[in-house]
């Protein structure tokens, strides 16, 4: 249960932050607008990750997807670097 809760709260945050930031970084639109849309929608994505983390019975799958999304998206961002 602890692993699931940590994955949901911390991993979910990292996955949400990473995925919306990556989307904001690569979206073909105005930088400022993309950034703000990403910030606005981030909490919905985060809430989605949390709910799914507690809904999906297989903990291994939860951990793999959430931490996988977090590491992959943050890794991509780190390679890309800031646009401006």
């Amino acid at each position, binding site marked *: *249960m602890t692993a699931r809760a940590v994955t949901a709260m911390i991993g979910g945050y990292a996955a949400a932050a990473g995925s919306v930031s990556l989307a*904001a970084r690569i979206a073909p639109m105005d*930088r*400022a607008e993309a950034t703000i849309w990403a*910030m*606005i929608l981030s*909490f919905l994505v985060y809430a989605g990750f949390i709910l799914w983390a507690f809904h999906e019975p297989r903990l291994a799958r939860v951990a793999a997807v959430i931490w996988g999304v977090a590491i992959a998206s943050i890794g991509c961002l780190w390679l890309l670097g800031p646009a*401006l």
Partner: protein
Amino acid sequence: MSKASKTAPKAAVGVRQSMAWIHGWLGLLAGWILFAMFLTGTASYFRPEITRWMQPEIELRPVSTATAASTAVAHLQKLAPDAEQWFISLPDARTTSTRVFIRDRPNPDPNAKPAPRRSELRLNPATGEALSARDTRGGEHFYRFHFQLQIPHPWGRWLAGLCAIAMLTAIISGVITHKRIFVDFFTLRWSKGQRSWLDAHNVSAVVALPFHAMITYTGLITLVAMYMPWPVVANYKDMSTFETAVFGAEPDAEATGRFAALTPVAPLIAQASRQWDGGSPATMVVRYPNDAAATISLFQNSKDRLNARGGSIVFSGVDGRQLSASPSPGPAAETAGVMLGLHMGNFAGPVLRWTYFLLGLAGTAMVGTGLVLWTVKRKRPNAAPFFGLRLAERLNVGAIACLPVGMAAYLLANRLLPVALPARADIEVSIMFWTWFGLAAVACLRPIRRAWTETLAIGAAAFLALPIVNALTTTRGFFTSLAKGDMLFPAFDLAMIATGALLAFASWRTATPSARPVRERAATRAPLQGAADAA
């Protein structure tokens, strides 16, 4: 948490079951703090009014923004003509007094002691004279508490954010759990034990569901730059580059050291008002007054617009020329600004403001009834309650019944502490927390049912005492104010009486023996829901 592991979703379960499980646990763990956030946040819809009530010495008639700005500048010219910046919060119909804050220039001698930080001043907007009134945090205290929780920065805000995201997930999972959302709109069965608590929880949740979802999400948006700065980090080299792109550049010219008289401000306000289609500024910042590089920035008041992020204009402080203005917002920036505005409700007139207040109370009731439902559901007749249940019951009393007493004590302290007492503003705040937590500790020593009855009765007495204490300690009692045509103080008295009556009724209901081993407090919230239903 033994219960947790037992009911944790292990095998494949339906969405509804897993969502019900999440809803129950996240709701419980965040619920006590959420209750306090909802209640103090709801009170904050009357933040300037509470501040005015807490400084009864100040009685002002509203004046035009231009007059207030000119008198404030005249006062600051006498007080600190060589300051680095003047921050001037201009009054409107609700805040009546002008607030100014001076930032001195740093001493050029690096070995000199830095000048002590100046405190904020309140000015009479008609004359520019400093107002003297009892020191108090006023409505600002409830407002700050509802997202900082009186915990050192930044931890209070993080904890509030964590509770808000728990609330958001609880709302989504609650809606999924719900089978008959439309029917529950009309269903409230009284005095039926657990069923009544569930009904009360459903009615308060469903009636105001759009409000709950909106207020939770927009609450997160108010601090999005702190909670979720990562999209900015991904795109920009720093936060200020992003802010410049969205809100326009802030003036950054250094002082020249050459004297230049500051331009009159009234024409600038008139010019800004024309550009804002009649809008008025809420804040004026004067940078390097009386220097050749002086600038005057005006920030738009959000009271007459849905988007809380109004525009800003920078003028030269020497000749009044417009130097720059904030860019017009794109769709995303506009959305974010409107979300902010929806949360704070500054645009709301009296009717909408009271609606906001009642919806906020419905949210408070939803959290409160949810907390009680959690305990009622787990209580078994003829079985000693397990430790977690006893703990939850006590924390429920501490959050739901003791916090209102603390808030009443804060207001009573404002009237009963000597006006000139040193550090009186901080003492008022301490009294609120000592009362709240002290009562919660006492309630732990009492049988649970008595704890509810007694604490609610104390709360009722405290709120009912407020109009009397106000009439005895100020010249602005109910009838005197009414005769003078001042509606703020009588309205405040009536609100306190209504709150006291509600708590007294709740106390009476918990004291009335019922056939079932259940407290009946849901019923006390029901008149409110009934009114909302009728509307």
